[in-house]
């Protein structure tokens, strides 16, 4: 790093320019990562926080995909799952998006219907056909507290408690009894009547899932895999991840392009050092070290700014999630991909001929 470090200090303008580009790309990646995670959380946190490892959907029709919107399960299917060996708990869960109103305030909410006493909902022992548990955001949006009343899909409901802050498909969750949920949910058109939307399962390793699915007429996937059954999450997350991927690719290309030009510019110096006896490995180490210093510095600053901005907007209307995973992982990926781009560029050092240092050509 002897020459590389001095180059960094000497060619300040050039490296500052490139460093600024890295800072800006890192900032953009950091903000996008926080936003992706924040939006994702607003889509799926109610599902990922369920005490269940599998979700059983009503078997979709031919050519249809699993969907929380379209799935319905009956009492019979639930009972069948509850009796299945290897299934420690099977809890019906009704999900519907509806409107809640309190005085002059109204908001869209996701009503999650569970059995009274179910482990799926907080304070579920207090649920009945006239009492619901609200998540913090739902209560705040409606301006209600425990003991207040509000209207859920035309039903007058009392706030039994305000607990947690989970979301489903960008709406805050209200935990209700299955009876209240069935009144709020649109009719399914099935003769045997829907009990719920899905069955949340807690299974052990010996559970025969496929056989139970065949017997019950359901399709069961892991809780994580079930997230793709939330339509808005799949399309939104896919688009944002694509943008993030493009940003990573662009940063690697920009850094690669910069170091390609830089290496060409200093190929005369490289030839001189080779002629003086510098090994190619030594020169490559020097050049890669320079790239990593530039990348690490730029990424550190960009990540710091992204984290600072994220901390400012977190908790406001902007769904920004600030965690080590949303801050440090994109930074590490930026450095790794940037170093790869730089490594591909500086490999041309290997082909510089020291003979060109002789004569008057330089």
């Amino acid at each position, binding site marked *: 790093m*002897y*020459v590389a470090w*001095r*180059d960094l*200090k*000497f*060619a300040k303008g050039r490296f500052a320019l490139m460093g600024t580009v890295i800072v800006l790309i890192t900032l953009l990646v950091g903000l996008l990562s926080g936003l992706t995670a924040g939006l994702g959380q607003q889509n799926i946190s109610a599902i990922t926080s369920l005490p269940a490892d599998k979700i059983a959907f009503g078997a979709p029709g031919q050519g249809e995909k699993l969907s929380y919107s379209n799935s319905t399960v009956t009492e019979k299917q639930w009972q069948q799952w509850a009796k299945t060996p290897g299934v420690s708990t099977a809890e019906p869960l009704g999900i519907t998006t509806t409107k809640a109103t309190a005085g002059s305030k109204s908001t869209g909410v996701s009503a999650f219907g569970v059995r009274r006493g179910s482990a799926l909902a907080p304070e579920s022992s207090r649920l009945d056909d006239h009492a619901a548990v609200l998540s913090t955001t739902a209560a705040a949006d409606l301006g209600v507290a425990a003991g207040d009343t509000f209207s859920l899909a035309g039903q007058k409901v009392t706030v039994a408690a305000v607990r947690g802050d989970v979301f489903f498909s960008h709406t805050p969750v209200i935990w209700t009894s299955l009876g209240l949920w069935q009144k709020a949910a649109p009719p399914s058109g099935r003769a045997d009547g829907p009990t719920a939307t899905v069955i949340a399962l807690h299974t052990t390793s010996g559970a025969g899932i496929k056989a139970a699915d065949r017997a019950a007429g359901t399709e069961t996937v892991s809780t994580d895999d079930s997230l793709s059954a939330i339509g808005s999450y799949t399309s939104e997350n896919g688009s944002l991840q694509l943008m993030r991927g493009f940003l990573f690719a662009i940063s690697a290309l920009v850094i690669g392009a910069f170091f390609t030009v830089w290496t060409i510019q200093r190929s*005369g*110096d490289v030839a*001189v*050092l*080779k*002629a*003086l*006896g*510098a*090994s190619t490995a*030594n020169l490559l180490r020097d050049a890669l070290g320079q790239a990593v210093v530039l990348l690490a510095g730029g990424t550190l600053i960009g990540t710091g700014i992204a984290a600072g901005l994220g901390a400012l907007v977190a908790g406001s209307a902007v769904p920004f999630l600030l965690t080590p995973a949303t801050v440090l992982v994109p930074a590490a990926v930026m450095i790794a991909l940037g170093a790869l781009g730089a490594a591909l560029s500086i490999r041309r050092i290997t082909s510089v001929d*020291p*003979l060109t*240092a*002789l*004569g*008057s050509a*330089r």
Partner: protein
Amino acid sequence: MSLNLTDITLTYPDGDTRLTALDQVTLEVPKGSLTAVVGPSGSGKSSLLAVAATLITPDAGTVTIDGTPTTGMTRGELTDLRRHKIGIVFQQPNLLPSLTAAEQLQVMAQIDGRKPRTARGRAMELLDAVGLADQAGRRPHQLSGGQRQRVNIARALMNDPTVLLVDEPTSALDHERGAAVIDLITRLTHQQATATVLVTHDRTHLTAVDQIAEVHDGRLRLPAHT
């Protein structure tokens, strides 16, 4: 002998044929002596220097540096040999723009795997020898042409080479500064006991050299004048 070139033949591709740059050249340069190689442009002087510097492998013949024949050496071994045994003074100073005069010398320690700051003393000693001790902290753009050439010379001596190869060191200098540079090389050759080969097309400053070899069309004639 510290530098022996024995029956060196070097050819370059030239269309469908090959051009002979060096034709069975033999040259012996003892320690502490300065041999000037003179000749017109295109005569083969630079090719001879490149072969002696192990930057080109000849078609035939043997290059021996400090008793070690270079024939069959790998590229890595030749790099090591250049680093430890050969000092090169380039025609253009070829100084690295980001380094100060002292750092231009200290970098030689770095490429040898040593800590550059441990070589500070040797660097200052050589800068003093070339009359630039007070310019140690200046970068190339802050030095004159003659000063840059003197740093170039000092850098070549940094790793105590056995062989010093000097390529047209006066080509970019006026008469007075050219003479001063040749005097400096002559003095350092004796002080540092190097086997020095000085390639030049300018005979005006060669009064103090130990031997003059003339190259014409790739053939070396020795001695033309001592």
